[in-house]
């Protein structure tokens, strides 16, 4: 072969290609499908099960207490014989509701603060961002504990607690976005065209910022749920009579020590699965937008 200087030009068509190293298979499609399916299942379960399945999640059946998982009770029963699958779905519903409302609250605060800082600039911007830095220096849960402690456990204190602790990142994102938008020519045009500051902000900046804020809000929902469950677990979140994933895990502690693992295991899984699904969706979405960018970790 070495002595054959003139290779047959048609050889290329018969070329045997060799692969080097491990080709990275694209798993986007799979990830996307699995994540989307999980999100769909979660949402459907939360929306449809309560009205469709006319079972009382509070129905106590002392004869059926602490049954391990079986066909009639796929997740088993808790220590007063309530069906854990049903409880978990209701718990997820409450947790999700708290998560969504809290994330929405945080996003509204964050967008308002970030947009104001970005749009006004100057000392307002500096002062606001300094405040954001300061807030970031206090651990979220600790801050949340303060708020809840001051206003007693309950749904609203938890929502407020999550809301006031999670707007920081949104504010940063929105501010950065506004700053970059501000340097675009069409904004200059609008300003020099005589539009008022607020008009520019509302008509031009806000629409540009909303997609980013929206993504941040979606990503925040699992985090808010996590926050709620942590507070509830500490006995500072939702009252124990409200089934949320956190109160379920908290209430299962006694059973766990007695060796019954299922009342603890399943609510935790109910927290993990939607989190992973949302993270998966967001991750795929991000990579679609900007595949060359250092893919950020989505959790």
């Amino acid at each position, binding site marked *: 072969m070495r002595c054959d200087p003139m290779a047959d030009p048609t050889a290329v068509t018969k070329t045997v290609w060799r692969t080097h190293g*491990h080709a990275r298979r694209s798993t986007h499609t799979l990830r996307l499908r699995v994540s989307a399916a999980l999100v769909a299942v979660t949402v459907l379960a939360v929306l449809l099960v309560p009205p469709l399945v006319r079972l009382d999640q509070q129905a106590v059946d002392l004869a059926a207490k602490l049954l391990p998982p079986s066909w009639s009770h796929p997740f088993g029963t808790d220590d007063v014989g309530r069906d854990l699958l049903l409880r978990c779905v209701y718990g997820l519903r409450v947790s999700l509701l708290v998560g969504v409302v809290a994330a929405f609250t945080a996003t509204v605060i964050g967008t308002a603060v970030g947009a104001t800082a970005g749009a006004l600039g100057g000392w307002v911007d500096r002062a606001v961002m300094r405040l954001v830095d300061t807030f970031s220096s206090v*651990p*979220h849960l600790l801050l949340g*504990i303060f708020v809840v402690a001051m206003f007693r456990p309950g749904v609203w204190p938890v929502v407020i607690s999550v809301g006031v602790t999670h707007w920081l990142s949104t504010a940063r994102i929105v501010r950065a976005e506004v700053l970059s938008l501000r340097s675009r020519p069409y904004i200059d045009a609008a300003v020099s065209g005589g539009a008022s500051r607020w008009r520019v902000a509302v008509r031009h900046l806000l629409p540009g910022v909303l997609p980013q804020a929206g993504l941040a809000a979606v990503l925040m929902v699992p985090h808010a749920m996590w926050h709620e469950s942590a507070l509830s677990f500490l006995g500072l979140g939702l009252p124990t009579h409200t089934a949320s994933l956190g109160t379920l895990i908290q209430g299962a502690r006694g059973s766990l020590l007695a060796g019954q693992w299922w009342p603890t295991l399943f*609510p935790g899984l109910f*927290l993990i699965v939607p989190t992973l699904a949302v993270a998966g969706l967001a991750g795929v979405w991000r990579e679609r937008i900007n595949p060359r960018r250092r*893919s950020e970790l989505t959790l």
Partner: protein
Amino acid sequence: MTALPWGEMARLTARRALFAVPVLLVVTFGVFAVAAASPFDPVKAYAGTAALGADQETLDRLRENLGVDRPFTARWWDWLTSALGGDLGQSAVMRQPVAEVIGERLVWSALLCAAAFAAAVLLGTVLGVLAARRPGSLLDRAVTSLAYTLEAAPVFWTALLAVWLFALQLDVLPAGGLTDTGSDQVTFGQVTSHLILPAGVLAVSQLPWFTLYVRQGVGDALAEDPVRGARARGLSERTVLLGHALRSGLLPVLTLIGSRVPELITGALLVETVFSWPGIAAATVEAATSVDFPLLAALATLATAAVLAGNLLADLLYGLADPRVKLNEM
């Protein structure tokens, strides 16, 4: 090897300390403001259920003793001035001085956090490097999936399952507490065996973050020119991985370590609760439920200071690890 740039490090520390002052002022002020806005009566919190049977006279006297009638700014100022003098006030709920509450618990919280952090860094680095070596391989996928799952798992849940498995089912580790018995002695062996489970769980909760970032950092570094250069020089895979990819890949992780301190504190709060570890966490939860101003303010200050210190430490480390970074420019 040049000697450590002590001067620059000291100057950076001083600059950060200066920045910390307004932050701490705002945080403590915030705590007092939020507390003042609370509809909850601190007098009843102090008295507990005993207040239910107590007469108005007693409650009034308590109110006066606790000084809760004065505006919160005045109380904040008093607290601040005496705190500067070393007196953090009296914890109402623990019925002992705040400094004492924190003093006897801080050691254990710090021990827990340090052990967990060290374990998470070490294990996270190992797993991250293993995963980054062959992106898309079975190992990589296993590690990545595990990391994402663990990241999504609430730490108190992991902790409970760990108790169930290791303390109840296998009965190999104690389920909680600091030492075995009511003996007043705290022995090294006992603390170690009691530390493994909480520190392990806390480490596991911090592990995914390190693993994923190390994987990312090393993976990126593996695709970059220094690694290509090192490979072209005929260096062994091991040297390429550890001597080049890891060392450049860890730099971005190092800068972000500081941002993990709040997460670590949050995790410790929950882990301590599950394992009844006698650290700050129990005090925090109790202080919160009982609206214990002085203790809350002190704990908030402490946590904030810890976060700022963590940021500083990360920056110092980064400045030392990366010769391109100048400490005096940070």
